[in-house]
């Protein structure tokens, strides 16, 4: 009995401590979103931040399905895209008929579009989880994507449907013409959506979503219908995806069939998985990384999709918890103060691993240049060093880096594992690791 007494009396204290920390995290996030464009004020970074904001909402909405409810969807972009189209039509209607609806509310209409379609198709889709759900989501995705090229009045065919975001009623004197104002609109919706989606995980429904993810069979024996739980989760995911789509429509002033295609669905899966679906903040990291990769790699190399694939395979094989999983692995070590025991081994492993990565990049680029894009000349730049793609010395360097890097990296990673074991033992002894 004394056991229960201490647990119950401990709880309020514990909770108020964590809630103070909790609010400060959101506050820091909000401040960061506000000051970010003041520090990086170039047009390019504003565009990147806007895209990242949209990607964050989209990836978090996807994780309501993947991470929270255990539903692997291959067609989530359908809700994003339909949200975008509904938003564009709404913007054009508001401008045409002079309705008193300011632009900042448009994403909500996108969200309504996203959830409406989720309500329509979700009941049948969520009857079963697992492979059945994945296959149906793929089918629905293809169905809508192909319809978008047929139903021209709704989707505008290949060209899509354009709009003018400045034609809507202004708010607080903002025209939303400048990218900075659009950025702040997106940042506002990122905060609102992220808080709402986090709050959703803390509700009875959110907890039961996790239970359905872990064990749908058992859920049926504690009074819940897993089908209803999955359906509700699907509706919320569709709603927030629609908000992201609406923001994209505002940002680009266009909605087209690329919004709801398989590529877009693949990218969001990619972002959620690489970031780490098991943690709420994982998809945020994934969205940031994937957007930067997309923007950065497309400028650097013609075969950027190949790198996406390699990164994805690497994460799936070596860090199935994603970036968030890798970070959270270190939490008990930080608490136990044994993180210092692994850092040197990381630094040591980093050198040959980087050499290996450079070797792989050099090989890919020489092959790509040699076979696919001969017209661009034979010189490729890697870290500012010019390499001649046709010169044997380049191939030899690449081979040496790959083989040598791999052999040395293998040894150093063994050292990492040993260091990790020692550090984990310390953490376990101090009670920070189960």
């Amino acid at each position, binding site marked *: 009995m004394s056991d229960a007494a201490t647990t*119950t009396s401990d709880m309020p204290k514990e909770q108020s401590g964590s809630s103070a920390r909790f609010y400060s995290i959101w506050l820091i996030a909000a401040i960061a979103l506000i000051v970010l464009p003041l520090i990086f004020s170039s047009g390019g970074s504003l565009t990147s931040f806007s895209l990242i904001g949209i990607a964050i909402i989209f990836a978090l909405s996807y994780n309501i399905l993947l991470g929270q409810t255990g539903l692997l969807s291959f067609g989530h972009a359908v809700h994003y895209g339909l949200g975008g189209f509904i938003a564009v039509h709404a913007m054009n209607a508001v401008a045409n008929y002079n309705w008193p609806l300011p632009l900042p509310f448009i994403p909500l209409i996108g969200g309504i579009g996203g959830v409406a379609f989720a309500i329509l198709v979700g009941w049948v889709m969520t009857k079963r989880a697992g492979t059945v759900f994945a296959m149906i989501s793929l089918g629905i995705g293809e169905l809508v994507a192909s319809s978008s090229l047929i139903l021209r009045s709704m989707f505008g065919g290949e060209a899509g449907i354009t709009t003018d975001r400045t034609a809507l009623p202004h708010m607080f004197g903002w025209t939303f013409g400048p990218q900075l104002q659009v950025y702040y609109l997106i940042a506002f919706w990122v905060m609102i959506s992220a808080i709402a989606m986090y709050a959703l995980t803390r509700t*009875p429904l959110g*907890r*039961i979503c996790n239970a359905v993810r872990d064990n749908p069979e*058992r859920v*049926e024996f*504690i*009074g819940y219908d897993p089908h*209803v739980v999955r359906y509700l989760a699907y509706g*919320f995911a569709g709603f927030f995806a629609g908000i992201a789509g609406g923001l994209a429509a505002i940002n680009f002033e266009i909605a087209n069939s690329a919004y709801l295609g398989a590529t877009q669905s693949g990218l969001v899966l990619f972002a959620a998985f690489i970031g780490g679906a098991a943690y709420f903040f994982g998809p945020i990291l994934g969205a940031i990384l994937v957007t930067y990769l997309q923007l950065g790699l497309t400028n650097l190399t013609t075969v950027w999709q190949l790198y996406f694939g390699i990164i994805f395979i690497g994460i799936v094989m070596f860090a199935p918890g994603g970036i968030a999983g890798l970070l959270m692995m270190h939490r008990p070590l930080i608490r136990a103060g044994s993180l210092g025991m692994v850092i040197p081994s990381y630094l040591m492993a980093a050198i040959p691993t980087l050499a290996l990565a450079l070797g792989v990049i050099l090989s890919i680029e020489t092959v790509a240049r040699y076979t696919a894009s001969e017209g661009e000349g034979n010189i490729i730049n890697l870290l500012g060093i010019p390499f001649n793609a046709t010169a044997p010395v380049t191939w030899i360097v690449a081979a040496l880096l790959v083989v040598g890097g791999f052999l040395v990296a293998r040894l150093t990673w063994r050292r990492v594992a040993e260091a990790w074991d020692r550090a984990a033992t310390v953490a376990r002894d101090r009670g920070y690791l189960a």
Partner: protein
Amino acid sequence: MTAAIEVNAVQKHFGNVSIIRDLNLSVAKGERHAIIGPNGAGKSTTFNLISGHLKPSSGEIRLNGGVISGLRPFEINRRGLSRSFQVTNVFARMTVWENVRCAVLWATGHRYAFWKNVDHLPEVKQRTAEILDDIHLSHRRDVPAGLLTYAEQRELEIGITIAGGANVIMLDEPTAGMSHAETERAVALIRRLTEGRTLVIVEHDMSVVFGLADRISVLVYGHIIASGTPEEIRANPKVREAYLGEEGH
């Protein structure tokens, strides 16, 4: 008085294979009823039929007088029947606390609510803490269920089963795989937690069965060959021949 569980002429076949043949069973309210029988007799199938995991091919099952055969498991659960599983069946990635709390939510009326903060529901918190205290897992509340020891997982399994406050509890081999000391602990736990409720239990350990049950039914090849008090069952020649005799070796 209506029986807590009444099984009338239930049959279950998978294709041509008949697993349950003309099953009749009556469990009175407040009774502790054990179902025993050799391996493959259909004990787990009986559990699955009553709890809605399987649908009977024919016949009728009543819970507190109302027909439940053909209903889905969650509908039966909402009518006041809760079961555990022979193979541990918990929410592995969620903590012990969350496992029990999930099992409390429907019964406390919060259902699919997405407008309430689950941490700010006093009655849920209190009931979860009580259950954890009951199953002696308060000190492990923040451990993911998948990392518990086997015996702890079995206790959590019982905790999840009773958490919803069902008045009919069905436990499928709750002490399977436990050491002698763990079994004793589990039996004391079951006895205490099912006080004032109806208990149906499938068990292989005869000391558990005879120590716990008010009545025993013996299931052989999908048919109940005898039902009675422990003394009657011990004395029943048919049972000795079909079942207890084998155990004697």
